[in-house]
């Protein structure tokens, strides 16, 4: 981040805040009613139009000198601090912003590049990302390796100055309109699984990569699976040392788990009564209770209060975790607490939304899409506990890495990966 910049050189936060406020007012389009962010179910042309618009917004930030607030200036960032990022997020409330760039392009992909890339690799890609030219994807999960990422079977074989990749990646959200992939692959099958991995970056749209789209249960077709056939990647696009990909992947997962609190991403504060809130707290659920005619029902009011409590708890826990890690008073592994909390709080809020909406979320009229969306959200509730690493894996990490409890028995420990067993469900279900 910006540890190399002396604090004296940095613009005072309040001056920065005012400059940002002015600039946003003059340049950034307002979010307006009906503005959506997050997983959407749009026809392809509309989806592509939104992607193009977000590239434009990212370019706007770049031209205005507000792209990559906490990235080093050397790579096109602004070299500012978390306090500046917090101030900007507050000012950003109510404006549109390049949502799709935040995750996974900036965090974790750009964060991983920043940490492990060579100077040339960073120069080649970080400014391009901050300019809005490159959208990145994580090529981590495979049909047979999700939670057990180190069991990756996509193979990379050395050929002169190049590597040749074969295999399949899955569950990438939006790969069909993205540009680059950060890819975990196996470079050595004769050592235990963690010691035979390497990380590469590759353009997604090239002849050796076939992308097929997977329909989610809510009708979204953003999920993709990629089939890699003899894809050639120059060795200069390898990130980190050969067979040392797990070192990169470990930090990669750390960045992924801190997505909701990283200073690198933009997260406009949602205005609620003049106070910052952490996304949807009680306010929108109160509206929902009112629409449902339940504003006088103490049961409904209690649910609104509960939602408010949980959002605040998530926000304060994230702050505590970040402060503990930043102050070196606890290990990086504490981010698993944030990851678990996010899953637990998000699912509960979705359930509360569905309950408050009542029958209208199960069957709704055309002009009632907002309430109907509560029902559809409910069907995909568990996305919050699966995507980005499951909550079970977070619980394992908390128990083992934070509390120091004994590790789970692993039958593949110390065994050359070639000899490790895999089950019949490995990927068979992926293509239906």
């Amino acid at each position, binding site marked *: 981040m910006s540890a190399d910049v002396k604090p004296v050189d940095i613009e005072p936060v309040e001056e920065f805040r005012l400059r940002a406020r002015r600039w946003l007012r003059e340049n950034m389009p307002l979010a307006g009613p009906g503005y959506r962010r997050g997983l959407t179910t749009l026809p392809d042309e509309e989806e592509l139009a939104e992607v193009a618009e977000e590239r434009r917004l990212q370019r706007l930030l770049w031209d205005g000198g507000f792209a990559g607030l906490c990235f080093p200036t050397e790579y096109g960032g602004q070299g500012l601090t978390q306090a500046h990022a917090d101030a900007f997020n507050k000012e950003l409330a109510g404006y549109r912003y390049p949502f799709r760039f935040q995750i996974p392009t900036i965090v974790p992909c750009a964060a991983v590049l920043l940490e492990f890339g060579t100077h040339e690799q960073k120069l080649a890609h970080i400014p391009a990302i901050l300019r809005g030219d490159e959208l990145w994807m994580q090529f981590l999960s495979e049909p047979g390796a999700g939670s057990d990422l180190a069991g990756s079977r996509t193979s990379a074989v050395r050929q002169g100055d190049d590597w040749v990749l074969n295999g399949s990646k899955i569950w990438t959200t939006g790969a069909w309109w993205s540009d680059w992939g950060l890819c975990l692959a196996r470079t050595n099958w004769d050592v235990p699984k963690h010691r035979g991995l390497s990380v590469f970056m590759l353009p997604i749209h090239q002849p050796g990569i076939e992308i097929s789209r997977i329909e989610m249960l809510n009708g979204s077709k953003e999920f993709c699976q990629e089939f890699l056939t003899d894809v050639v990647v120059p060795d200069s696009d390898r990130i980190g040392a050969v067979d040392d990909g797990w070192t990169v992947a470990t930090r990669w997962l750390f960045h992924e788990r801190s997505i909701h609190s990283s200073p690198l991403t933009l997260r406009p504060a949602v205005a609620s009564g003049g106070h910052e809130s952490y996304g949807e707290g009680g306010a929108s659920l109160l509206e929902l209770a009112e629409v449902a005619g339940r504003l006088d029902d103490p049961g409904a009011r209690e649910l609104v*209060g509960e939602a408010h409590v949980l959002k605040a708890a998530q926000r304060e826990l994230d702050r*505590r975790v970040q402060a*503990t890690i930043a102050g070196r008073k606890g290990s990086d592994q504490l981010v698993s*607490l944030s990851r678990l*909390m996010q899953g637990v709080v998000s699912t509960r809020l979705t359930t509360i939304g569905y309950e408050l909406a009542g029958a209208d979320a199960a069957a709704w009229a055309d002009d009632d899409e907002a309430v109907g969306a509560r029902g559809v959200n409910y069907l995909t509730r568990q996305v919050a506990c699966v995507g980005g690493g499951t909550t079970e894996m977070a619980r394992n990490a908390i128990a083992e890495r934070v509390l120091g409890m004994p590790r789970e028995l692993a039958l593949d420990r110390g065994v050359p990966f070639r000899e490790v067993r895999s089950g019949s469900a490995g990927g068979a279900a992926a293509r239906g």
Partner: protein
Amino acid sequence: MKLDLTADQELLLDTTRRYLADVVPTAVLRKLRDDPDGYEPGYWSTGAELGWTSLLVAEEHGGGSVSDDGLGDLALVAHEFGRAAAPGPLLTTNVVAGALSRAGGDAVAETLGALCAGESVAAWCWSEPRPKGGFGGIEAVAEPAGGDWVLSGVKSPVEHGAQADLFLVTARSGDGLVQLLVPAASAGVTVTPLKTLDVTRRFARVAFDAVRLPAAAVVGEPGGAAAEVERQLVEALVIQTAEMVGALDKAFELTVAWANDRYSFGRPLASYQALKHRFADMKMWLEASHALADAAAVAARDEPARAGELASVAKAYVGHYGPELCQDCVQLHGGIGLTFEHDLHLYLRRVAVGAALLGTPRDHRLRLADLVERRRDERKAEA
């Protein structure tokens, strides 16, 4: 508990921790179970010397904090009280002392001197038994009579009501609230000790039957005490949640140690994933509870407009997940967790009592819903 402490705060914490460990180890707490006061004479005045009673009191009244953040300092002490399940009228005396010091005037000087020295105890009489208006409802009434005031009503449960020399009583007066400082020996005051779940903390029911008091007994503006009462409630909740979190911290620590030491089927309990996942959830509740209790203390200092909100958020969260965490600790101990001999119940008691007093989680969720609605209405009015 807070992450960044000043050297003075570390000292306050350390002396409190060592004093409690020396004087009220858990074996002593068990013996105090039948003691009517819940603590030995001398325990409280020595604690007062360590600073327990003066943190919310202005320097001119003989008080003073160690960090310019008296409530934050007191929250640290309360956290240690929770970790030790320590006896004594910590919450009740401090809330009254803070209120008297803010009200100021000549009359409070002597009273505050005795409270700060630990020579006398004051009880905060706010809660009423099953108030008709719901949580926070006040039915006690105080009316001017000649130059005097006459107070009638019932307060319960009053923390250390039977040990207190003074009561700070919240009552209705006309359209507003009034607070009166009532000597325990006044005619018309009846104190009835209550049975309680806590081993050493005591509660009482205090009835005021046409108690006649001089005008000087009024603290602050008669009829205009609502904002001050709300502030006292926030302070009480900050102390209460800090103490509950301290107790949770200790209960969790004991249980993690137990799970590592106890074996079944040839392996430690801590090696079973079914139990590890429960520990992970408990750790999350615990850390969120720490974070919220701290945030409430910080808001009380820095952001008066959000102090009530964060105090209610902290109480609603800690009051719900805290008892769950403690019960899980009992469960994971197996049979031994249900014995009087084991320490675990000392913390379970403190947390369970805290959850029920000064508003249940439900009360605070409803308070927050009201707040969310009020803000929404204000926003609409602005637009």
